[in-house]
């Protein structure tokens, strides 16, 4: 009769095998960082419930109603909303213009590794392939790691107030994200068709056009659309640093304690974001 392994005695529990250190270590480090962060971030729930805070909430909520709906204000805000959309479109266009070349350069299978380069010489691979590959990866990493607000802030300093710095900020930050994801998509393309084309004697350009692009395109389009959605949200608030759009208005109204204007602006933002969700969902439906 077979024996039941590790039947209960509590001291032998867990007999489940994973007695490695990692879970304990992880729990300890995690708990320590949470405690440390709670102190560092000055988390104090009482501050939410003290009399001042509650009075402020009441002031804020009372101030929001009724929302400001005068024709003049709405007209002004409509223009800001339009500007927000325009910033996102231009920003995304620049991001694509930056992301495509950088993304291609950052794809190892296109630059120095794999099917396309079996006959390239060693030095050729390093100088013409690996060097630009590494450089563009570094550039992409810097572009996307610095948040778009910081870019916007710096561009405001460099080229002045208005929508232009917002466009540049989205272009640079999202160019970095698009480039990285484009290169990942290109990298993950199945090599089998490429090999077949290569074996059939296709040139390098032929392989790229007939093997690589068709496989990568749907994902590229889908991800770019997703980024455009994000760009609308972002451009709506880049105004906080003086880069045009709705954000500038929200900050202004908030600073002036005009909460009735804030409510209107948030409603406009809500509608804007919701309609972008719907539109890009439609487009994605067509593409897929």
């Amino acid at each position, binding site marked *: *009769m*077979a*024996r*039941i*392994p*590790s*039947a*209960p005695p509590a001291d032998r*529990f*867990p*007999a*489940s*095998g994973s007695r490695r250190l990692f879970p304990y270590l992880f729990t300890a480090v995690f708990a320590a960082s949470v405690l440390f962060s709670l102190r560092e971030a000055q988390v104090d729930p009482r501050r939410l419930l003290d009399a001042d805070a509650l009075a402020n909430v009441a002031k804020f909520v009372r101030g929001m109603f009724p929302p400001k709906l005068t024709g003049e204000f709405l007209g002004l805000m409509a223009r800001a909303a339009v500007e927000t959309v325009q910033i996102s479109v231009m920003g995304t266009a620049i991001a694509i213009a930056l992301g495509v070349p950088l993304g291609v350069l950052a794809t190892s299978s296109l630059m120095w590794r794999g099917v396309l380069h079996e006959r390239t010489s060693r030095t050729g691979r390093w100088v013409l392939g690996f060097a630009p590959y590494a450089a563009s990866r570094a550039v992409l990493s810097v572009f996307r790691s610095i948040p778009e607000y910081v870019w916007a802030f710096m561009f405001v300093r460099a080229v002045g107030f208005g929508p232009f710095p917002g466009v540049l900020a989205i272009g640079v930050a999202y160019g970095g994200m698009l480039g990285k994801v484009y290169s990942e998509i290109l990298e993950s393309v199945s090599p089998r068709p490429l090999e077949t084309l290569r074996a059939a004697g296709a040139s390098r350009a032929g392989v790229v056009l007939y093997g690589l692009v068709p496989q990568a395109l749907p994902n590229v389009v889908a991800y770019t659309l997703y980024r455009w959605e994000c760009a609308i949200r972002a451009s709506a608030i880049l105004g906080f640093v003086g880069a045009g759009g709705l954000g500038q208005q929200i900050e202004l109204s908030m600073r002036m304690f005009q909460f009735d204007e804030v409510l209107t602006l948030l409603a406009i933002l809500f509608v804007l974001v919701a309609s972008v969700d719907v539109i890009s969902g439609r487009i994605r439906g067509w593409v897929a």
Partner: protein
Amino acid sequence: MYELTGIRKVFAAGSVALEDVSLRVGPGEHVAFIGPSGAGKTTLFRILNLTLRPTAGALVFEGQDVSELSDAELRRVRTRIGTIYQQQNLVGRLRVVHNVLAGHLGRWSAAAALASLVRPRDVAGAGRALEQVGMPEKLWARTDELSGGQQQRVAIARVLVQDPDVILADEPVSAVDPSLAVSIVTLLRDLSHASRKTLLMNLHSVDLALGYFPRIVGVRDGRVRFDLSPDKVGPELLAELYAGHRDEEQELEQLRDGKNPFGAACRPLPGFRK
């Protein structure tokens, strides 16, 4: 045990899965359900284990009309009915011990269930159940790392832990290889025989049904076509039951030619001569 009168099930899309099914099953009985795929057998079993509500008709379990039960009563009745599915319906990411102990869930509170996931509550019971299905060494394995046949035995162990009065097995062997199929069917038959449980089984293979069950119910197009002992189920009846279902007809042809996919473990089928 079960008393069904005029059961009818229509799905939302308008397709009729069952039509006027009436049936009585006594305590301790062993019944096999056969019929072509799409006949409505699985729907019937989901109604029998009270996870699907019939559109019309009465289902009486142990003298109690099921449609009149409250939520809590329904749950209590369900604990007395154990189900084994075609696909094993286990939680793949959990260890075997948890999937076996899921048989206790009808008796455990949610808090107890959560606690048991951290520290299993009845390891000994799970071990015994696994022993009965012949794989005690897999107690701590991750369920999705087991083969299909092993997972099916985990599902049986879960039912053993649940210890119900009725076992419903919906095509328990159609996803495992033939040699294992015989052993699983015998296992279920012997286990339920020993503890006087009622056993209802959907079977894809006619020879297993005829070979191991004293009562055969033929289902086609949502209706019960016959309800007989196996020696009365002849080739004509079977041909009629499976008419128009090509794959299954071919299997019948093979049976008629004396080829039995389950080997010597199956006794010769009545009505079919070598």
